[in-house]
């Protein structure tokens, strides 16, 4: 597996970003071998404290969100409002391949961190920009979060509601992490461009753009005037064969039968309802649609009689497509979560397992996660690597520009 170097070994990435989408993209680059330097302000990335600050985060002794979003990074603290610190950053930019930035545009201008500025320092630099809402337009300066920009503004949450109910709820950072993969793709495109032309470039993506891409089917529908009808609750679904059912042990099982013509008979057999197969009320798809509430009532009574495990086996045996609604606590012990490479071991004592990024390649394995850096843990080392003398580093420290 490891006869080759990691595909991004030798690349230096400056992660000048906060919270989750942009830092998570830097994590992925680090997983594949890049040397990621996290440039933080004196107070540190607020993501260091999000587990405590946000009520929507599960609490733990272990600062798991920070560990996950900062693994294998080094940290340098620079107070970029101070000219000495800004000058030191230019030294880092001059020796880096990729710079990831998610400051809102006005802050970039103030700090001279827009692409035009960094390009002068290093024309081969790949500048990766993440914004909430894009680089221009009326809302370009508005800070965006995944709940606002990816989920709410895009129409996702409005579409994800049951008829008459409140909007859907996004899980913490769910859109951020999906967006990270688009940012990684953008950076890899730029690396190809640099290899072909020798030139650096600007690349980027927005949370809003990713939210709309993920609901592209319904967004494309809206563009031609087609809209999702409000989603009826599970007891009166539009299709009883694409619906959720509660099992005897209070879990939920999700039928997802797309090819209903092929799977209707196997489903009836799995449910031990052979008489339904040729029941004229349900024999053809059009009838099953028309009588979907009636059919859902029959299925719902049936599923409620036996536990999830029984139904899992019965449906799988007849190749009927279905899914369980797992709880997050089921995932760590799911053998398949390990098999698909999602759950991996770390070198972090109090967090022995973590989530790998979802990219798999035959020629290399992702780096093992080591503990996330303490604030400014590598400041001196990084500056010395960039060619600053011990005296210069000491002067920076004394001026408060660096810690």
């Amino acid at each position, binding site marked *: 597996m490891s006869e080759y170097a990691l595909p991004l070994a030798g690349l230096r990435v400056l992660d000048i970003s906060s919270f989750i989408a942009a830092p998570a993209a830097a994590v992925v680059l680090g997983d594949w071998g890049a040397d990621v330097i996290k440039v933080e302000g004196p107070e540190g990335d607020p993501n260091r404290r999000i587990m405590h600050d946000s009520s929507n985060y599960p609490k733990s002794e272990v600062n798991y969100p920070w560990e996950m979003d900062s693994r294998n990074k080094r940290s340098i603290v620079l107070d970029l409002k101070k000219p000495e610190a800004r000058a030191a950053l230019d030294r880092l930019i001059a020796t880096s391949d990729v710079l990831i930035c998610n400051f809102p545009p006005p802050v970039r201008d103030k700090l001279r961190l827009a692409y035009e500025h960094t390009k002068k320092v290093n024309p081969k630099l790949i500048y990766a920009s993440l914004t909430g809402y894009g680089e221009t337009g009326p809302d370009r300066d508005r800070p965006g979060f995944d709940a606002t920009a990816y989920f709410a503004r895009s129409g996702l949450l409005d579409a994800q509601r049951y008829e008459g109910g409140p909007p859907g709820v996004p899980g913490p950072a769910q859109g951020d992490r999906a967006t990270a993969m688009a940012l990684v793709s953008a950076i890899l495109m730029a690396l190809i461009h640099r290899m072909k032309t020798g030139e650096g470039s600007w690349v980027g993506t927005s949370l809003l753009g990713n939210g709309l891409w993920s609901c592209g089917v319904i*967004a494309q529908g809206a563009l031609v005037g087609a809209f999702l009808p409000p989603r009826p609750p599970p007891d009166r679904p539009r299709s009883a064969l694409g619906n959720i059912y509660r099992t005897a042990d209070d879990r939920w099982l999700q039928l997802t039968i797309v090819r209903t013509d092929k799977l209707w008979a196997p489903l009836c057999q799995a449910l031990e309802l052979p008489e339904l197969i040729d029941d004229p009320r349900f024999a053809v798809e059009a009838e099953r649609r028309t009588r979907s509430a009636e059919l859902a009532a029959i299925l719902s009574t049936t599923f409620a009689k036996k536990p999830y495990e029984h139904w899992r086996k019965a449906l799988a045996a007849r190749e009927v497509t279905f899914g369980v609604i797992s709880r997050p606590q089921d995932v760590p012990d799911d053998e398949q979560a390990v098999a698909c490479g999602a759950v991996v071991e770390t070198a972090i004592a109090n967090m022995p397992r973590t989530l790998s990024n979802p990219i798999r390649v*035959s020629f290399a394995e992702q780096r093992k996660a080591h503990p996330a850096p303490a604030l400014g843990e590598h400041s001196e080392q990084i500056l010395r690597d960039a060619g600053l003398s011990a005296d210069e580093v000491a002067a920076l420290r004394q001026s408060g520009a660096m810690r």
Partner: protein
Amino acid sequence: MSNETGGPLPLAGLVVLDVSSFIAAPAAAVALADFGADVIKVEPPDGDPHRQSYNSANYPRGDKQVNFPWQLDGRLKRSIALDLKNDQARAVLARLIKRADIMIVNFPPPARERLRLRWEDIEPVNPRLVYCSLTGYGETGPDRDRAGFDVTAYFGRSGILDSARYEDGPPGLSLPAQGDRATAMTLVAAILLGLRHRDQTGKGCWVGTSLYANGVWANGTSAAGALVGAKLLPRQSPDKPRNALTNLYRTKDDRWLQLIMVRDDRLFQPFCRAIGRDDLLADPRFADRERRKEYAIDLHRELAPMFAEKTYEEWERLLSPLGIPIGVIGRLADVIEDDQAQHAGIFADTTNPEIPRTVNNPIRLGFARPRTAGPPPKIGEHSDQILRELAYSDGEIAALKKSGAFG
């Protein structure tokens, strides 16, 4: 800044075989085509079943029946119809593979074995190929052979839908292909890493991902919490929040406003001043972050009637200048007219009269613009053209047709 020039596209000259169906894998091929790759869709004689998805009860409906999902996921591709169970068709595929750079496959593993379409079958034919695999649940393990869809593998199995429910309510909802399209970006990244490896070593490789791993990755914060035994609390309904400052409020015009005051240490004071409620600042229940959370329901009781007195627009005008993050719960009907969505490069004009506008992939490049989309191919529309590119003679093509290789 993005000075989006019309420079040479980064993937121009690459040939991609899209031997996949439905959405995640074909959507990855779309993104490659957007940036210049020549994508050949290898379809069975009756076509990718996704051509029929628009008939699904869970898909949007309009007055006129436009096959918009297929228009979206088939754009910029050419189609060749091959019956891969037919030996002669299989020989055609081998010739296609020989001159391809990338091949995207999403058959479940047993079908790959049957069709001899695993990487180990393909590598001898073209050792420089980047073979990209999408599965529902991974390449090994008890469920590797199970067909996965985004609603099952990405959303259900990963814990996302369970996380996305209000206390005592049914599981959350996902939208058609929502996880598929997010997964497509991972496939693109995997393929680009594969290309980089090929450039570095001269050798092809296997790359891939699964819907399940992508769902877990998206749900990574909750999943990482679960790995250390931290359990996500059930989401309370908007009238019983755990934090009233990161909550949903209904506005006068019956829209929902999402208050995301994560930095309430800095923002609570200017917020109270702006809404003319200095009394809240003096109230000991709301004196600091901890107490504001402790008394979240009380604070909600103060805020909810107030939010109901102004329209969403009025709130936006009041709160945005203070840097207080708020979001509207957008409705797609508005989003497609959203000026900001245009600025962010999210929608693009097409040359396809069926769908004059489409959804761009979310990757923006300063050095190149994505290609303009035309109509997607009919089944086998380019079969003859592609075969001629492979140096098949007219006689050979006629013989193949007769043999049933095209169905």
